[in-house]
């Protein structure tokens, strides 16, 4: 069966510090991978998605970037965090193609102070 991991679970970072959140998927190959953010009291906003190694699509302009160095690894980064980057970050995977369900990881809660 497939499993998706995210770490860390919780992170408190000062403004201006760098960020690296990691997501890995087990039990499948060549998945589509996604990064979402849920701000407090709001829905899920798609930040990035990837259909393959090195292929990243950005959905919204922002202070963040994503990379996919390996087939089942997806990394969310920032060089300098802003207060507005605080939120709950979720990684998800799907088999790709149309009408495919996305499955989510446990999430990382980021608090920027």
């Amino acid at each position, binding site marked *: 069966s497939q499993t998706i991991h995210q770490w860390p679970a919780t992170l408190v970072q000062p403004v201006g510090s760098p960020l690296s959140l990691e997501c890995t998927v087990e039990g499948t190959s060549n998945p589509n991978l996604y990064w979402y953010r849920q701000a407090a009291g709001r829905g899920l906003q798609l930040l990035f998605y990837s259909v393959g190694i090195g292929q990243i699509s950005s959905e919204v302009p922002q202070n963040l970037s994503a990379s996919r160095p390996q087939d089942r690894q997806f990394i969310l980064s920032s060089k300098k965090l802003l207060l507005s980057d605080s939120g709950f970050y*979720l990684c*998800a995977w799907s088999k790709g193609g*149309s*009408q495919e369900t996305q499955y989510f990881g446990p*999430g990382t*809660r980021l608090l920027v102070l």
Partner: protein
Amino acid sequence: DQQVKQNSPSLSVQEGRISILNCDYTNSMFDYFLWYKKYPAEGPTFLISISSIKDKNEDGRFTVFLNKSAKHLSLHIVPSQPGDSAVYFCAASEIRGKLIFGQGTTLQVKP
């Protein structure tokens, strides 16, 4: 422009009764719809989905209804249980499997 809307931020029902969560969408190109359940500080859990070629899909206590002409989606939970208390998100899929999520509805099931 919010393409998927959940207009009720919260819903409270009595245990054993039916919970009905609603979702509206604007993009007629959406061809796949999903419901997720989310507890605080956890990732969403997939509940049930429906393709645009169907109007109903049932899985145990959960049934999803799709009205394409009205661009309306609903999730019925019967009977509701206290463990169903969570935030429920509807989502619609466009090309390449990208999901557009609603804002979520918080369901509280009272014992």
